[in-house]
Structure formats: structure tokens, C-alpha cells
């Protein structure tokens, strides 16, 4: 009799308190709900040319051999750096330059003289081959070089291979200021 009473009591409790019985169970996985929120954004292709070291000038000093009046053969200037240059995508680097020209003596140079000095400008460190541009060349196929990946680094800008326009035998007209410009361009390629 005691056993039967116990069974009856359990049955009664189950019938009377179904909620309590469920609450005691571990909730099934279906009791869970999820929602997904998407997040998007863009980073555009962009390039930064970097910060130029020094005062931004290649100072070649006196251009001529004072004994001959002709262009010095040992002209040089320390390289410049474009520090922290980067492109966030594949890119191209292009170097261009204008010859050194007398800024005050603007008339045509007399026979035997020249008022223009050509040179080669190069930008290295961005691509396997440096971009080069010769101010005296008819064309400069190597002026633009391509890179297939995003990149950041320093670009070394150099000038070299100086030559007198019109021929090495010409003398340069006297002028306190010969000036040219080297331009390095980084371009993102989509």
C-alpha cells in the first residue's frame, strides 16, 4: 500500500504541475534565437608620395670646370629619400624631369655655348627596376614601372649622367641659377 501511494502521489504531482516539470528540464536548443548583422566598409585605392628628406633640393654647386668652362665630369649630389611612401593597391611609379636651364640667361646661347644641362633622374626602391628618365632622351620607356601589390617603403631619388645639351665640347653660359625639377608620381591602379 505504501508503494502504491507513492506512485499515485508522483502521478498527481506530474499532472498538477506540468510547468514545474518542464522548468526543471534543460531547455532544448530550439529555445534559442539568433540574428545576424552585416558590417561593410571600403578602403579606397590611394597613394602617398612620402616625405622628402632634406630641403628638397639637389644642390650641385658649381657646374663647370673653372679651367675649361665646360661641364664638370664629377658632378654629383646626395640622393633624396621619399620616406613612408605607400599605395594601398597595385600601383605605378613614374619619374619625370626637366633639364637644368639657366634661369637668367634665357636667350639662345651663342655659338660654342649652351645654357642647358641634361641628366638622368631615377626613383628606386618601389619596383624591381628603378623608374628612370633622361631629360635629353627622345623617349623614356623606363620612366614608368608597375607594381602588382600594395606597398610601403622609402623611395630613393637620384640624379646622374650629366651632359651638356648640344655636346660635351660646349661651354655653359654664366648664370647664378641653373634649375631643373624632378617629379616622382605614385599612382594607384584599380
Amino acid at each position, binding site marked *: 500500500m505504501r508503494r502504491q501511494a507513492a506512485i499515485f502521489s508522483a502521478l498527481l504531482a506530474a*499532472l*498538477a504541475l*506540468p*510547468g514545474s516539470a*518542464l*522548468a526543471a528540464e*534543460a*531547455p*532544448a*536548443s*530550439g*529555445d*534559442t*534565437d*539568433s*540574428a*545576424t*548583422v*552585416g*558590417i*561593410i*566598409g*571600403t*578602403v*579606397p*585605392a*590611394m597613394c*602617398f608620395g612620402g616625405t622628402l628628406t632634406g630641403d628638397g633640393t639637389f644642390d650641385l654647386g658649381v657646374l663647370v670646370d673653372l679651367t675649361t668652362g665646360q661641364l664638370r665630369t664629377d658632378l654629383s649630389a646626395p640622393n633624396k629619400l621619399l620616406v613612408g611612401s*605607400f599605395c*594601398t*593597391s597595385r600601383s605605378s611609379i613614374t619619374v619625370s624631369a626637366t633639364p637644368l636651364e639657366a634661369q637668367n640667361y634665357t636667350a639662345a646661347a651663342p655659338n660654342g655655348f649652351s645654357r642647358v644641362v641634361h641628366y638622368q633622374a631615377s626613383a628606386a626602391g618601389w619596383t624591381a627596376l628603378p623608374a628612370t628618365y633622361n631629360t635629353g632622351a627622345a623617349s623614356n620607356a623606363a620612366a614608368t614601372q608597375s607594381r602588382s*601589390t*600594395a*606597398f*610601403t*617603403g622609402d623611395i630613393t631619388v637620384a640624379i646622374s649622367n650629366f651632359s651638356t645639351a648640344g655636346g660635351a665640347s660646349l661651354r655653359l653660359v654664366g648664370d647664378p641659377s641653373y634649375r631643373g625639377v624632378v617629379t616622382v608620381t605614385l599612382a*594607384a591602379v584599380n
Partner: protein
Amino acid sequence: MKCKPGLALIVLAAFPATAIAQTTETGTVAVEGQVRPVCVLGDPNPALVNLGQLSANSGPRTGRIAVIAPRTVTLPASYCNFAGSVVSVTATALTSNDTSAPQPGFARAVNYTASASNWASGTSTATTAALRDGTVPTASGFGATQPLPKIADITLTLSSFTAPGDLILVAGNYSGTVVVTLGPAAFPNEDN
């Protein structure tokens, strides 16, 4: 004949129910049902968060991650009909659609913190910590247990956007996800 009165007594004793049915009486019928424990999340509004441009356009931080204002997503009228529920958050960092390994100095991931509030005390928070190559993008977290059945608008806040190492971000379209889960308190621990 002496036996007849004894027989009549036996008959009466054999049909007592018939005699009772002819009187007023009350019976009890049990009625039972169930209410399953349920949690329902409201549809996220908005379901897609567009952060726009992630990198700075100019200034000293050009190319690096810009200052991105926090964004808020609401999951309205979310509820659980039982005591002991919890919100968990699984956040996946934004990564670029360009899956190639980034060059040195670059990152292709944007990390952030996803935080769900207004369910229990405190928040359910996950902060992603993807590496610069976009690996290990996912992080999870959950908050305190809600001790009562509850219905409320859950607020999901996305904030603290950063790039691994504060590196320059490679160009591309970036995407990530946040999964908000509402369920029994035991649920978040099942994966642990």
C-alpha cells in the same frame, strides 16, 4: 423462506453505484498543457551597417584607419518567456575581399567591439582581435543572466574600430558579421 431477507441484502450491496448515480455529485477532470521555453530576437534594424570609408583620406593618418563613430543596431521586442536567459555575441572582424597576404606594413582586417545591452545587467561584449592577414577574426562573449522572463529592445553597439598594429589598410571592400544569440543561460557555456 428464511433465506429471502438475506438475498435482498446482497443485491443492494452489489449495486451501490446505481443508487448513487441517481443523486447530484461533482466530478473532476484535469486540464493540462505546456508552454515551451522560447526566445525570439527582433529583426535587426538595420540588418546591414555600412561604415563607409574605413581609412583616412588626408592628414598624418592617411591610409590608416579613420575615426569611425559607433553604430547602433536595435533588435526590437526581443523576448524570452522563461527565467535564466542570456545574450551572447559573436563578432567577426571586417576583412578585405582581397584575400592575398598583405605586404609588410599593411593590414587587411578591421577589429571592433560589439556590445549588446538592455537585456541583463551589464552588457554582452565581444572584441575581435584579427591579425593583420585577417586570420583569427572571430571573438565571442556573453553577459549576465536575466533572472526573469523579459521582453525588451536589445541594443547592439559597434565601436572601437581599429586596424591590427594600426597598419595601413589595403584597398578593397571589407565585410564582417555580428551574430547575436538569445537563449538559456546554459547555452553559452556549452561551447566552452
